């Protein structure tokens, strides 16, 4: 799954843009501790967390990118950190379930409805 395809499918707004890359899976959790406990490799994070810790968590587990769900706007500090360490960051209006559904469609290449609403 290409990051650019995921971002497009999620109608996400990129906050930190870097060269496109391929990911093999997705880790979705609001608790960063759960993300720290994952065994996945080459993955991107879907989370509702917008604090700088979301980026540090991504760095610790070697996640390739972070997508914030529910349209939450990360503070400057988070964006700055992501930029400093080269972690692609984007925000989607979709809620976690819908975002996972759409990401699954991109990941497993199954055409899914993209008409999910955010309300």
């Amino acid at each position, binding site marked *: 799954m290409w990051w650019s395809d995921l971002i497009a499918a999620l109608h996400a707004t990129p906050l930190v843009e870097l060269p496109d890359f391929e990911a093999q899976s997705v880790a979705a959790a*609001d*608790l*960063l*501790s*759960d993300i*720290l*406990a994952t065994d996945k490799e080459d993955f991107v994070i879907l*989370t509702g*967390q917008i*604090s*700088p*810790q*979301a*980026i*540090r*968590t991504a*760095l*610790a*587990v*070697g996640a390739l990118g972070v997508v914030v769900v529910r349209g939450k706007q990360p503070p*400057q*500090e988070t964006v*700055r*950190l992501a*930029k*400093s*360490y080269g972690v692609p960051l984007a925000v989607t209006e979709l809620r976690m379930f819908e975002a996972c559904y759409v990401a699954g469609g991109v990941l497993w290449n199954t055409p899914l409805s993209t008409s999910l609403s955010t309300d």
Partner: protein
Amino acid sequence: MEYSVIHELVHRLKVSHAMSTDYVTVPPNVAMRVAQQRMREARAGGMPVTRGDEMVGIVTTEDVILWLDGGGRDDLVEQWMTRDVVTVDRRWPLTEAMGLFGKTGFGRLPVLDEGGQLCGVITPESILKSLLDEVSAMLTAKDEAESGRATMDGSVLRIEFDVPARDYERAGMASVRVKRELAARGFKPQLQRRVAIATHECETNLIIHTTEGGRIVALVDDGSVKLTVSDKGPGIEDIERAMVPGFSTASDFVRDLGFGAGMGLPNIRKCADRFEIRSKRGSGTWLHLEFDVTPGDRAPADPPSTDGGGEEVRIR
């Protein structure tokens, strides 16, 4: 901030970094009045004139003044716009665009993409904003990189962190620093990750659970990575229960921050090759972790080693 930093930035950054993609345009076949209004509303000193996807000119404050001077008639934009437009390519280094501002005296320049299509507008203000963003990102990185104290003791790198209690904002800083040091020494990502995750969990524990914070000491050499974490309390009531995945004493506040899933200690044990914990209610907790470095955990080429003697290690 030294001059050379800014100098390096304007050479490294591209026009695309500093341009604004939020700009107004006007078609050539509308009244100048429309252009004037649009510029006033957008507080823009000029805007590209576009026909479909094609940029055919630019209309500036100066054009508007000339038009007003001429009586402000019902003329069309195409009668007053500047056709000979100076543009910049979004792939150019910023310094090129800055040079053009100086040479032409213009306040804004349209930016074209690889295909020659209009894709943004660059102004001295947008350049300043991008430079400030970059500088503050650099300062953040410096701040993070300098968390902790690193010293060389012979061939052993020792990194020490004092982690204050309740300083949630800093959670993960030690982890990021340790990981960078391992990466700089050629350790493979898999080992970096195990150590980084364990460090992250340890510092989070110190921040969330201790009364006065605590200390993390990382010792790194060719054969192993060791972490020793200690605090002065309150100590763990029941270590066996604390080791059960999902068991947590964290507050809702801490959970809102994304921590306290009850996976900390189990996750630390999973990441480390050796795990030892001692805790006494009322006097504190001591944790020792070891990570074995197998030949496959290191990249073939050794990075240049720093001279010993307990001197401060500078982070690149």
